[in-house]
């Protein structure tokens, strides 16, 4: 009895700290489920940053100007850096990057399914920067006030760079939309293909997302999926109009009463098909990540062997 008693006390005191907007730090007590949810969410975020390097990396060698090539290289470098922050944040919860990557490779851990769509043209790089980073920012701004300290601090740092990236993506779309007929068509085509997947980035509807409620209670998640999605739509439709592109969803219309844009139904069948692993690029992304690690086995072994020799020499 006593043992369960203190567990409940700890839980009550923990919840009180969360309710009081206190930051939970690595050394503080936390419910096992809280730790598990955080590890799942932070590692998924870290994996997304790293896997996201592939669709953007796909266009580094073909960027249509040296300036765009440099900007895209810097963006992908930032994202790899975000991945590092997030893996370290997750490690404060007692896991290791190796374990998290192992789970990714075994298909146990997920990454944002937007990266399971192919970047077919240069305009897709604009759309990904503008829409995907736009959606990510909306998610991450809310997460800056997440209850877990290291995650919140990582979000603050990442958000600054993400908004810079989003502007660069939008700048590409602007150049294309104001360019030749072919460039404008390329931009419209990218918008059409990435619009719905971007809405899906916010996850299932509130009534459908299993662990949303608990995460909200623990203030890991500060806003619901549908709230965040609506914010994204409201923020993005005016930007489409500035671009002079056609709305990618005929049902997109300003609803004066709601004070929001209405939009059409999301194809949840496609959402779950892609999450289950049958999107266009799921296998490719995972096999690419696994191959990079396998090809690097001998490099990491050499590093370890050299370190041991060096330490051996110093000790002698």
């Amino acid at each position, binding site marked *: 009895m006593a043992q369960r008693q203190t567990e409940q006390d700890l839980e009550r005191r923990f919840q009180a700290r969360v309710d009081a907007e206190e930051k939970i730090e690595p050394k503080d007590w936390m419910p096992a489920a809280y730790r598990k949810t955080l590890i799942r969410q932070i590692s998924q975020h870290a994996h997304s940053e*790293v896997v996201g*390097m*592939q669709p953007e*990396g796909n266009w*580094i*060698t*073909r*960027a*249509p*100007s*040296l*300036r*765009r*090539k*440099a900007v895209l*290289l*810097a963006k*992908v*470098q930032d994202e*790899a*850096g975000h*991945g*590092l922050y997030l*893996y370290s944040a997750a490690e404060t919860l007692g896991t290791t990057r190796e374990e998290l990557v192992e789970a990714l490779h075994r298909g146990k851990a997920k990454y944002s399914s937007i990266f399971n769509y192919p970047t077919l043209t*240069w305009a897709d790089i604009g759309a990904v920067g503008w829409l995907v980073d736009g959606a990510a920012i909306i998610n991450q701004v809310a997460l800056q006030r997440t209850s877990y300290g290291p995650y919140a601090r990582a979000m603050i740092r990442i958000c600054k760079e993400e908004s810079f990236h989003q502007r660069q993506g939008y700048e*590409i779309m602007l*150049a294309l939309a104001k*360019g*030749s007929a*072919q*460039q404008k068509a390329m931009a419209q085509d990218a918008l059409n293909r990435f619009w719905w997947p971007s809405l899906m980035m916010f996850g299932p509807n509130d009534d459908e997302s299993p662990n949303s409620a608990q995460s909200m209670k623990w203030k890991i998640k500060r806003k619901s999926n549908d709230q965040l999605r609506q914010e994204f739509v409201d923020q993005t439709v005016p930007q489409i109009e500035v671009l002079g592109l056609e709305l990618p969803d005929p049902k997109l219309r300003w609803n004066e009463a709601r004070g929001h844009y209405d939009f059409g139904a999301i194809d949840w069948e496609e959402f779950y098909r892609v999450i289950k692993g049958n999107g266009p690029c799921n296998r490719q992304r995972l096999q*690419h*990540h696994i191959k*990079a*690690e396998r*090809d*690097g*086995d*001998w*490099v*990491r*072994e*050499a*590093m370890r*062997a*050299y370190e041991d*020799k060096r330490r051996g020499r110093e000790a002698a």
Partner: protein
Amino acid sequence: MSKQTIVEYATRLGDDALILGHRLSEWCSNGPFLEEDIATINTSLDYIGRARMFLSYAAELEGAGRTEDDLAYTRDCRDFKNLLINELPRGDFAFTTVRQFLVDAFNLFFFEALVGSTDTQLAAIAAKSVKESRYHLRRSRDWMLRLGDGTEESHRRTQTALDDLWGYTDELFHMDPLESELLDTGVAVDRAAVRLRWEPLVTELIDAATLQLPQPYTLPGGGRQGVHTEHLGHLLAELQFVQRAYPGLQW
């Protein structure tokens, strides 16, 4: 010493940086671990930035209304002037490391000399490049030691890479009439002098990494005359596709 010779000199240095920067960028998302991916992308960024400075200077000096992108995206391989060591496919991590080490060591001493160029624009680019090269060289030296003196496999791969690359190093130091003329007027660098600093550093590090100095052999240069390996054409088909498929537009 016509302006045209400096345009050619700047184009050569720009092509060297652009093509190696391209090969480094191919490692993006393919590195042995995340930190190394970041470092290689960073090095690639330095080279692409350097290429932009040299090529925009060449285009500006040429005064024919061309831009850095015209040079990068609309010349075919016979008009590219990069040294061959820069265009070789990235190979495995050992090949990339050894090439980078040989080129970083060269670049450090070359740009230290170019800082003294009578051409202020070249000297300014060189000043920035010296700082970058110092950092790059520190990184590639560490990797040469880890791979050379790591495991049997890393040693074997690194020795093979060194042997395959060695024939291409001679071209780094070749002074043709154009650069000799620019040397006399204080614009260009004496590559023979760079060799005197490069060789001891390289041989000493090769030894420290428990590697063998390759049997000396020399492959024909040709990069400065647009006579390249078969690899450059395939690289350019990739690099130039969008501007070739949609010519004359802003991006």
